[in-house]
């Protein structure tokens, strides 16, 4: 008898739950219908917004970035301020901070030198225009050895990339080429000479050709600097030499402080 009572009670509770559940479902259906009647295309909007949300998430569920204007260009370190900071830190015996400030000042000066060099480059070379959006000046904190300046010239399928670097290691390799008889001028297949020594405005140079890369011309400057021209889709070696001759190599050398 007692067992029967318990079963009846459980059935009653179950029925109540089902009733509430179906009641809620009914209410939701009603609400949706009213919404449809009022907005007309509520469902389609909802499905669109759901799709948009789905497209902006990765498989792991985290959102992908679709906004943001990127970083703003910051001015190079303020050299005068950094020098003043270095003096202050040195006077108070905080040599680690003084060193950091001098590094920052050096970086500021290097970036300014790099910008000066960039501005001195010609606007047009062999009818190729300078793509100013690709101008680059990079400096590391290690002072002078890693200053890199790059500019790109373009027209149709032709491109000339000039890279001016201050790196003793690379420059040293090229010098080694000139000064070591072991590195003889080589013939790749007996007919076509793909690496050879040449001169650009009285500066010793090396020019190379590769079917996939085009022409590359390297001129070491002074003790540790180097200019590299990479020329894509240039018809002849002479075209490359003409393009290189359009650059004021003496001026660049002077700006980099090379002798």
């Amino acid at each position, binding site marked *: 008898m007692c067992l029967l009572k318990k079963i009846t009670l459980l059935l009653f509770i179950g029925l109540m739950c089902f009733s509430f559940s179906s009641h809620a479902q009914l209410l939701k259906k009603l609400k949706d219908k009213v919404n449809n009647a009022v907005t007309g295309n509520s469902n389609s909007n909802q499905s669109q917004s759901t799709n948009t949300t789905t497209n902006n998430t990765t498989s792991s569920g985290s959102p992908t970035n679709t906004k943001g204007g990127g970083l703003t260009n910051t001015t190079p370190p303020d*050299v*005068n301020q950094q*020098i003043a900071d*270095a*003096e202050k830190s*040195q006077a108070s015996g905080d*040599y*680690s901070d*003084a*060193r950091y400030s*001098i*590094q920052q*000042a*050096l970086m500021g*000066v*290097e970036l*300014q*030198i790099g910008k*000066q060099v960039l501005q001195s480059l010609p606007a047009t070379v062999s009818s190729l225009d300078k793509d100013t959006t690709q101008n680059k000046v990079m400096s590391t904190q*290690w*002072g*002078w*050895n890693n200053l890199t300046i790059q500019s790109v010239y373009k027209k149709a399928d032709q491109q000339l990339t000039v890279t001016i670097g201050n790196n*003793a290691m690379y420059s040293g390799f090229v010098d080694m080429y000139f000064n070591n008889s072991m590195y003889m001028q080589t013939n790749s297949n007996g007919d076509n000479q793909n690496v050879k020594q040449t001169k650009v405005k009285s500066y010793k140079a090396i020019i190379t050709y590769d079917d996939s890369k085009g022409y590359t011309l390297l001129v070491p400057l002074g003790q540790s600097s180097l200019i590299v021209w990479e020329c894509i889709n240039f018809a002849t070696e002479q075209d490359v030499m003409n393009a290189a001759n359009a650059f004021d190599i003496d001026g660049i050398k002077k*700006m*980099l*402080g090379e002798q």
Partner: protein
Amino acid sequence: MKYLIILISMFITTAVLSQDFKTDIATAKTSYASGNLEDAHFALQQAMQEIDIIIGKQVISLLPANMGNFSANTKDDNVMSNVGFMGSTIHRTWGQNDSVDVSIIGNSPLISTLNVFLNTPLLGGMMSNGNNKIIKVQGYKGQITKSDEGNGESNYTIQIPMGSSLLTFTAKNTTDTQITTMANTLPLQQIAKLLK
């Protein structure tokens, strides 16, 4: 008395270097103001070298006068500044025939390799040849390496990265316990603070 003389001479050297620093900074300011960037750059490099040497001398002054039973060869103390590829180099030896040796190289190119070894247990295990292992000295992770000299003697080297600087501590004809005990007498925290 001997150490008093060393300290006084170190103070005088630091004072002279500080003077050079001020001269170089003045030159940098004048050159920069007149738009002579190349000269400003050179003067700043000189100033940085002097700061490196001052820091190096301060580090040297922190190193213990004795290492185990060995006395410091203070006349061989060496601080060099190399602007460019590497930073300063600080070097001291103890005992006859440089039985114990410490060198600290700023901006060492070996740092990244050593850090990978120290922080990747799997790689550390693979690269280990039985003669090296990872240890901690005063809380700083480092690598200890044993090398046999073929005459029954073993030399040990402890390498500890500190930021971008690498401290290398070597002891000849010793054991790993002895070298670790000696390395524990180096004021690593103070050195790291100066080199940061």
